């Protein structure tokens, strides 16, 4: 319970944002930050905690987006119910993918994810009877809904923000839970030395497949939310390689294998993106690439990782001083 308190606090703070941020554009930015936090956390679970670098997470995101939009348009299931179904669908799809690709290690695994993602994109592009091919799907209007007797205004940003804020906080909390869990310890062992992990009896494939499923669930929910918020899904929008790279960027810049990293990474991603996009159309990707290179070169533990280390060092110095370590030295 004590461990849950900070998360409830963070959740409350996140939900309270619309009370302060009234401007729709800034709220839109908050929505993007929360969405990318969720996606960064999804990637980080696998790439950061387990050390399995995926270049194909866009496929899980895209599957989520397609599931939500198709459930709504073809079966009339409202998008907010579609989001968890999207997560579950992405997790289910990830199982066979994981069982196949996790037979490979390190860079070979990364390359295979790239190929899987391209295959998924080609399927979405060419299986026109199901996916509408390159045209994709468009939601023209959302179903009316009443909460506490008031009709929800789908033209405002608040309902979307609240949805994604809850999802993002839940995503971060689940990574915090993962890190403390037995599975998290297995993942750390796998990341440091896979052979040694196997030698002490960790079922590495099982641990990695489970982690991928969790990662896929989060990414799928993110995709479902994307469809709900942007109301438009096509292969270029939700299955592009660039999306996978942006998730990598967030986890990398924020800090691989940290709980808070994705939030920092997402803030950076959106800040760079919006600053640059205002001036030129595609410039933001230049800076994503540049930033990734700079971070790996100078701060491989990421911003959150570096900040935490500095804080710990300061705390250690503070604790040591009154104890009279000086005399010992």
């Amino acid at each position: 319970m004590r461990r849950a308190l900070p998360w409830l606090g963070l959740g409350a703070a996140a939900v309270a944002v619309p009370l302060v941020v009234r401007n729709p554009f800034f709220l839109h930015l908050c929505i993007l930050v929360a969405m990318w936090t969720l996606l960064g956390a999804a990637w980080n679970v696998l790439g950061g905690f387990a050390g399995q670098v995926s270049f194909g997470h866009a496929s899980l995101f895209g599957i989520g987006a397609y599931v939500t939009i198709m459930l709504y348009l073809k079966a009339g299931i409202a998008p907010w119910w579609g989001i968890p179904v999207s997560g579950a669908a992405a997790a289910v799809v990830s199982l066979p993918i994981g069982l196949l690709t996790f037979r490979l290690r390190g860079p070979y695994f990364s390359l295979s994810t790239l190929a899987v993602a391209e295959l998924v994109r080609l399927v979405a592009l060419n299986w026109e009877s199901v996916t509408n091919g390159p045209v994709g799907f468009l939601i023209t209007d959302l179903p009316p809904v009443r909460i506490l007797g008031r009709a929800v205004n789908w033209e405002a940003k608040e309902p979307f923000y609240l949805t994604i804020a809850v999802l993002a906080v839940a995503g971060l909390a689940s990574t915090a839970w993962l890190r403390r869990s037995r599975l998290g310890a297995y993942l750390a062992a796998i990341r440091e030395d896979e052979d040694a992990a196997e030698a002490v009896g960790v079922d590495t494939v099982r641990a990695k497949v489970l982690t991928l499923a969790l990662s896929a669930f989060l990414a799928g929910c993110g995709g479902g939310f994307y469809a709900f918020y942007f109301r438009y899904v096509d292969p270029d929008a939700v299955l592009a390689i660039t999306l996978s790279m942006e998730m990598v960027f967030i986890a990398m810049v924020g800090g691989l294998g940290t709980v808070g990293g994705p939030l920092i990474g997402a803030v950076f991603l959106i800040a760079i993106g919006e600053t640059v996009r205002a001036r030129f159309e595609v410039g933001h990707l230049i800076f994503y690439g540049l930033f990734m290179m700079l971070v790996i070169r100078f701060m491989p533990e990421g911003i959150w990782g570096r900040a935490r280390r500095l804080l710990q060092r300061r705390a250690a110095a503070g604790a040591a001083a009154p104890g009279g370590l000086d005399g010992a030295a």
Partner: protein
Amino acid sequence: METAVQSLVSGVLTGALYAMIGVGLTVVFGVMRIINLAHGEMVMLGMFGAYFGLELLGLDPFVSVVVWAPVMFAAGALIHRLLLRRIIPGGELNTLLYTAGLSLLVANLALFVWTGDYRTINLPYAALPLRPFGIAVPIPLAIAFGIAVLVTGALWLFLGRTDLGRAVRATSQNAEAAVLMGIDVERVATFTFGLGTALAGVAGVLLAPSLYLYPTVGEILVVKCFVIVVLGGLGSVPGAIAGGILLGLVESFGAVYVSMAWKDGIGFLLFLLVLLYRPSGLFGVGKA
């Protein structure tokens, strides 16, 4: 029958160029254990080099190889010296992510400077294909094939017969032993990265008259490149040549006998199958 022969011919012609790109990636992997995700962007730079050589200086693309090969070599050597060298001790995942960043940077800088427009190179002597025995052979592809075969042959001789070439192969087989034999492994690495980049760049120059040029073409090329080197076994030069030809054939037969839309998909499927069942490559010579 004629379609089959036609597919065979175009498959082999394209395959030789694929092979050249693959060889560039594979020698770099062999020596440094780096999977260079920015390799496709080097091909792209070569393509644009050929384009601007023709537009601005009136230089024939196939002649401009003489210019772009040393330029790309120098660019690659500099990238290794100034950027990658400090990343390599951090482990293979760091270099993988670092080259991913480099690829984003280069591709989107190009997109910013040159815009996303599709460009083509029209050579007056290449308007109509040659038709030996009723098989259509596009002239630019045929010339590119010839040069690619020459370059790859020269590379083969270089790796087999010269001291530097032997040093590259020795480092690739066992870097520690190479150091003990007095090889300056750092220099070999810089040289190899330059060599790999030059091969990618020259392949780009040669491909330019046969493909559409656009800044993000590297994205699809780099994936194909991985298919090639994994088919042949990462680190193996003959494997990459065979893998390149094989992918060329799979694509051209796939486009004719399966469907145009799925021809890339067949390549990726083959890639996954090989990764899963023969991770050291179809010929069992690579290093998994």
